C-alpha cells in the first residue's frame, strides 16, 4: 500500500493520520515542531506551571470522531456536562451561565427581571436546532448543484432536516443565521452582561465585532456542537490521538519542515523537507492552513488561476493573542472569593467587545481588550503547584498587522492592557503574577506556521463557511491537484478543537 503523508501533527493532522492508518494506509505525519499537538500541545510556562495549548476549549470535540478512533481505549474520557462560564463584571459579582439553563435562571432573574426566562428560551431554541446543526457540521458540505444521486440525496437530507425543525424554528434559524450576534442576543436579554458573555464565541476568529452581520452564525456554530470537555483538556486529547496513531503503526517525523509539495505531471509525487530529504508519496494531506499549503508549498503556477485567486482572497487576519499567567496563589473573581471558576468571560457590555475590535480595524491593539479566561488548574491541579493557579487567556483584539509591528513596547503595552482588564474583574491578580508569556498573532504565525497568525486557519465569516470553506473550489477537501487534500481547520466545519475537518478529509480520501 502506498504511503500517505500528512503535513502537521496538530489535532486534525493526527485525526487524518490515525483514520488513514487504521484503514490500512502507511501514514507519515511530518511536523515542523519538536512535539505533536500543534495548537493543542501543552507548554511549560514556569517551573511547576504548565499551560494547556493555545486552544484550550475542548467543548467542541466530536464524539463520533473520537468513538470512531476508539480513543477511550487510549485513555480519553469526557466530563459529565458542558462547563459553566462566569460572566465576570468589573463592578459586581457577575453571573454564572450554566449550559443547563434552569440552573442559571434565578441568578439571571435577579440581575434583571425577564433575563432568566430569556436564557431559558434562548437555550431552548438552541437545543431544538442542535441535532440539525450538528448534522450539517458533521457531514461534508453539500454541493449547491448536486452532480450525482448521492449528492442530491445529501442535499435533500439537509433540506428535510431543516423542514423537520417545524416552521417556526426553521424560519427562526433562517432569520438568525445572517444576523449580528448583538441584535440576536439583545432580543433575549435586557441586561448587558449575559449578552456580552454569550457573544464572546461569536467574535473569536472572525475579525468582526458582535455588531457585524453574520456573527450570529458563528455563535450558532459554536453553541450547536458545544458539549462536555475532554478530561485533562487538549493535552489529553492529543495524547490519546498520538497513541491511537502509533497503535495503527503510523510514523511521525518531528522537527521536519516541509519546504515543498513536489508534483509530477500535475499529480502529487511527495514532499521535500528542509535539508533536502525527499519523501515519496502519491497522497499528501495538508492539515496546515490552506494559504500556507497552497501558496507556500506549491511551485507557483501549479494551481489553476481561478483557484489560486480564491486562496489569495481567503481572509485570515489574526486578531487573537494568548496571554499565559503563572500565579502565586489562586485567582479570585470579584465578589466570588473562595469560589473556583475554570472559565470566565470578561466584558461588561457588548459594546466593550465591539470597541475591542474597532482597534484592530485601524491596526491598533485594543487598550481595553475583551478576554476569554481559562483557569485549567481548577480541573487539573497538577498544572500548577498546590494552591496556585495557571491562567490562560485568549485576548482580543490584537491585530497581526499592528501598525509599527509587534515591538517590545507594543507587546508590553498589550500584555499590560490584558492584565489591567483581568484586574478589573479579579482584583489582586496582578500582584500574584510570577511569570507571564504573551503570544501575539505574529508569534503564532512564527511558531506554528499559521498564515496571518489566525488560530482558525481562516476567518469564520458567512462567505468562508460551509461549502465556501476555505473557498468554493476547495470545499470538499480535495484540491485540483491529484493526490493533494486539505484536512485542517481551514476546511469545513472550521476552526476550534472539533477534530471534524480531519475526519471529513479522511472520509473524502477513503471514498475516492
Amino acid at each position: 500500500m502506498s504511503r500517505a503523508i500528512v503535513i502537521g501533527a496538530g489535532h486534525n493532522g493526527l485525526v487524518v493520520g490515525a483514520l488513514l492508518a487504521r484503514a490500512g494506509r502507511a501514514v507519515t505525519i511530518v511536523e515542523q515542531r519538536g512535539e505533536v499537538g500543534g495548537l493543542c500541545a501543552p507548554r511549560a510556562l514556569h517551573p511547576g506551571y504548565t499551560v494547556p495549548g493555545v486552544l484550550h476549549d475542548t467543548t467542541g470535540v466530536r464524539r463520533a470522531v473520537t468513538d470512531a478512533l476508539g480513543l477511550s481505549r487510549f485513555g480519553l474520557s469526557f466530563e459529565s456536562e458542558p462547563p459553566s462560564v462566569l460572566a465576570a463584571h468589573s463592578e459586581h459579582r457577575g453571573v454564572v451561565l450554566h449550559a443547563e439553563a434552569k440552573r442559571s435562571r434565578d441568578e439571571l432573574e435577579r440581575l434583571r427581571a425577564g433575563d432568566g426566562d430569556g436564557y431559558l428560551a434562548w437555550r431552548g431554541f438552541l437545543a431544538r436546532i442542535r441535532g440539525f446543526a450538528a448534522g450539517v457540521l458533521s457531514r461534508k458540505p453539500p454541493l449547491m448543484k448536486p452532480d450525482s444521486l448521492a449528492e442530491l440525496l445529501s442535499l435533500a437530507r439537509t433540506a428535510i432536516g431543516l423542514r423537520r425543525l417545524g416552521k417556526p424554528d426553521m424560519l427562526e434559524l433562517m432569520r438568525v443565521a445572517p444576523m449580528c450576534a448583538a441584535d440576536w442576543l439583545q432580543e433575549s436579554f435586557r441586561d448587558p452582561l449575559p449578552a456580552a458573555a454569550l457573544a464572546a464565541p461569536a467574535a473569536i476568529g472572525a475579525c468582526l465585532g458582535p455588531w457585524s452581520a453574520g456573527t450570529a452564525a458563528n455563535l450558532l456554530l459554536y453553541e450547536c456542537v458545544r458539549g462536555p470537555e475532554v478530561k485533562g483538556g487538549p493535552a489529553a486529547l492529543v495524547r490519546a490521538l498520538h497513541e491511537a496513531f502509533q497503535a495503527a503503526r503510523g510514523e511521525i517525523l518531528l522537527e521536519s519542515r516541509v519546504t515543498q509539495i513536489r508534483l509530477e505531471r500535475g499529480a502529487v509525487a511527495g514532499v521535500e523537507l528542509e535539508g533536502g530529504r525527499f519523501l515519496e508519496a502519491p497522497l499528501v494531506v495538508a492539515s496546515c492552513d490552506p494559504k500556507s499549503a497552497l501558496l507556500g508549498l506549491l511551485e507557483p503556477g501549479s494551481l489553476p488561476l481561478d483557484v489560486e485567486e480564491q486562496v489569495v482572497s481567503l481572509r485570515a487576519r489574526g486578531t487573537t493573542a494568548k496571554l499565559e499567567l503563572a500565579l502565586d496563589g489562586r485567582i479570585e473573581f470579584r465578589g466570588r472569593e473562595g469560589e473556583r471558576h475554570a472559565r470566565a468571560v470578561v466584558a461588561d457590555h457588548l459594546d466593550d467587545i465591539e470597541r475591542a475590535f474597532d482597534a484592530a480595524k485601524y491596526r491598533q491593539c485594543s487598550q481595553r481588550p475583551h478576554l476569554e479566561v481559562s483557569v485549567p488548574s481548577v480541573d487539573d491541579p497538577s498544572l500548577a503547584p498546590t494552591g496556585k493557579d495557571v491562567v490562560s487567556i485568549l485576548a482580543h483584539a490584537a491585530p497581526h498587522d499592528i501598525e509599527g509591528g509587534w515591538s517590545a513596547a507594543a507587546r508590553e503595552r498589550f500584555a499590560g492592557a490584558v492584565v489591567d482588564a483581568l484586574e478589573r474583574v479579579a482584583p489582586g491578580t496582578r500582584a500574584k503574577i510570577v511569570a507571564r508569556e504573551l503570544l501575539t498573532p505574529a508569534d503564532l504565525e512564527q511558531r506554528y506556521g499559521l498564515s496571518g497568525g489566525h488560530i482558525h486557519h481562516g476567518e469564520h465569516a458567512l462567505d468562508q463557511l460551509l461549502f465556501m470553506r476555505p473557498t468554493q473550489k476547495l470545499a470538499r477537501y480535495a484540491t485540483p491537484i491529484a493526490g493533494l487534500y486539505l484536512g485542517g481547520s481551514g476546511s469545513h466545519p472550521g476552526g476550534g478543537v472539533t477534530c471534524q475537518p480531519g475526519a471529513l478529509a479522511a472520509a473524502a480520501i477513503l471514498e475516492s
Partner: protein
Amino acid sequence: MPTTYDAIVVGAGHNGLTCAAYLAKAGRKVLVLERRASIGGATASEEIYPGFTFSSCSYVVSLLRPQIIRDLELSKHGLEIMPLDWTFSPFEDGSSLLRGPDPEMNRRNIARFSRRDAERYPLFGQAMSELGRMMKPIIESPAPEPSKLTPSTLLELLRLGRRFKGMGEEWLSANLKMMTMSAVDFLSEWFESERLIGPMSVSGIIGTFLGIRSPGTAYVLLHHYMGEIDGSFRAWGFQKGGTGAVAMAIARAARAHGVEIKTDAPVDKVLMTNGQARGVVLVNGDEYHAKAVVSGADPHRTFLGLVGEERLEPEFAKQIKRFKMRGSSGKVNLALDSLPVFPGLDGASHHAMRADITIAPNIDFLERAYDDAKYGRFSREPFMDCVIPSLSDPSVAPPGKHVMSIFVQYAPYNLKEGAADWENQREAFGDAVIDTLARFSPGIKDRILHRHVLTPWDLEQTYGLTEGNIFHGELSLEQLAFMRPAAGWARYRTPVDKLWLCGSGAHPGGGIMAAPGQLCARTMLQARAV
C-alpha cells in the same frame, strides 16, 4: 352613509400612489388618504426658502421600474429624468477621481492611483451588471415563500431555479459571496487603491445601519447597480423639478384612472370587524369604508399604530416589534449663492459638478464615521453624498443660485442621550457636515444662504418614517425577501384579513423603485381581493 370604496390606500408616497394607480387601472374605485398637506411622502420636493426647491428626503431617482413607467404612462404625466451618471470623489490632498460613462476617461483617471485597478474597473462593471440582471427577476416578483410548499410557490421557485439553471456552481457561489461579504472585502478582491474602494464602497451602506466592513453590504452594492432608467442599466438621474415631481406624475396617472386623493387626512386607526379590515377612521373621526385597506406606511406604523398591538396575534406583534427600523442617515439641504469649488478640478469640472459628489476619501474615514454611530453619536466626520440638481434643472433655484442636497451618514436615530435629543443636536450635526465638507470644498461656508437640516428624528416627526428609516426597515439580510417584514408575511397580505402592505417595508424594499406598490396591487388583483 359614507361612500364605500374597493380599496383605501393609506399614504400618498410613491408606493401608495403606484398601488392605487394599478388598482384603479384595473377598474377599482380607490381612495388615497394622506396625512400631510402635500403628496409624495418621503418623495417630496418643497420650496423651503423662497425660490429654492429642495428634494427634502430622497434626492435621486434610479430604481424606478421601467415597466411601471410604461404601464402608468408616467412620461405623459410629467416624468422627466435627467441622467446623473458621473461620480466625483474629491480627496483632502486636492486630488480627485471622476468616473462616468466614458471608459477611456475612467481608465486614465483611475490609473493615476492604480494601473491595475484601471484595467479591472470595466470588468467589474460588467460582472456587476451581469449579477444585477440575474437578480432582476427577484425584485420583479413577490418573494418566494420557502415555508409554504404549495403548488404555486413550488412553481415560482422552479421558475426562479430555471433562470439560475444555466449558471454554474461558480456563479451561484459568486452570488452567495456577494450576499454575505462586506463591501470592502468584496471590492478588495478586485481593487487595491483605497481612492477607488472608498467611494465605491459607499453604495453598500446608503440607508443601512452597517459599516463598509459589515458583512451583507456587498449585496446592497449590487442593489444600487440594479438601477435602470429607460432601459439603460445602472444609471441614476434627477427628476425635473425635484423628486417630488415623480410622485406628482404617479398621482396624475392615478387620478387619470379615477383615483381620489385626499390630503390633510391623517388616518388614526384601521376599522376592523371580526378581525377583518373594513375601512379607516381619521383623526377627526371621519370614517371611510372599503373592501380592502392598503397601507403604504412602514410596518411599525401600520401594525403597531394603525392596527394596534392589542388587535394582533402576540407572535406576529413580536416579529414586527423586532423588525429593525433604526434610521442612520440625515439630510442637509443648502441654498447656495454660487457654485461650490473643489480644488484640483481640471477641464472635466463640467461633469464633476453635475456628478454625484461623494465624500468618502478612504476606508478608515468611513469606518470611523460608522464607529461613532454604533455608540449613539452622529459621525463627527460623516460620509456625504452630494448633488447639485440646479445645474441640470435651473427651475429649482433663482437664476445664478444653486441648491445642494447632501445625504449624510451616519446620523443614528437612537442617540446616546435618546432620540428626542436630536432637537438639541440638530445644528451641531449640521455644523459637522459643513465643517467636513469645507475641508474638501474650501469657501463653501461663505456661499451658504440657507441651511436646512433633517435628522432621523425630523424624518420621523415630519414624514412619519418610524425611527427615521428611509427604507421602512433596515435592508439587512434577515429583513429581506421572505423575511420582509416578517417571516411568512412577505407577500403584501397581512395577518389582518383585508389589510395589505404596499410600502418599502415589503419586498423588495426601499428606494424610489415603486415595486412594492406595483407588486402589492398585482397580488391583490390576482387574489381577487378587490
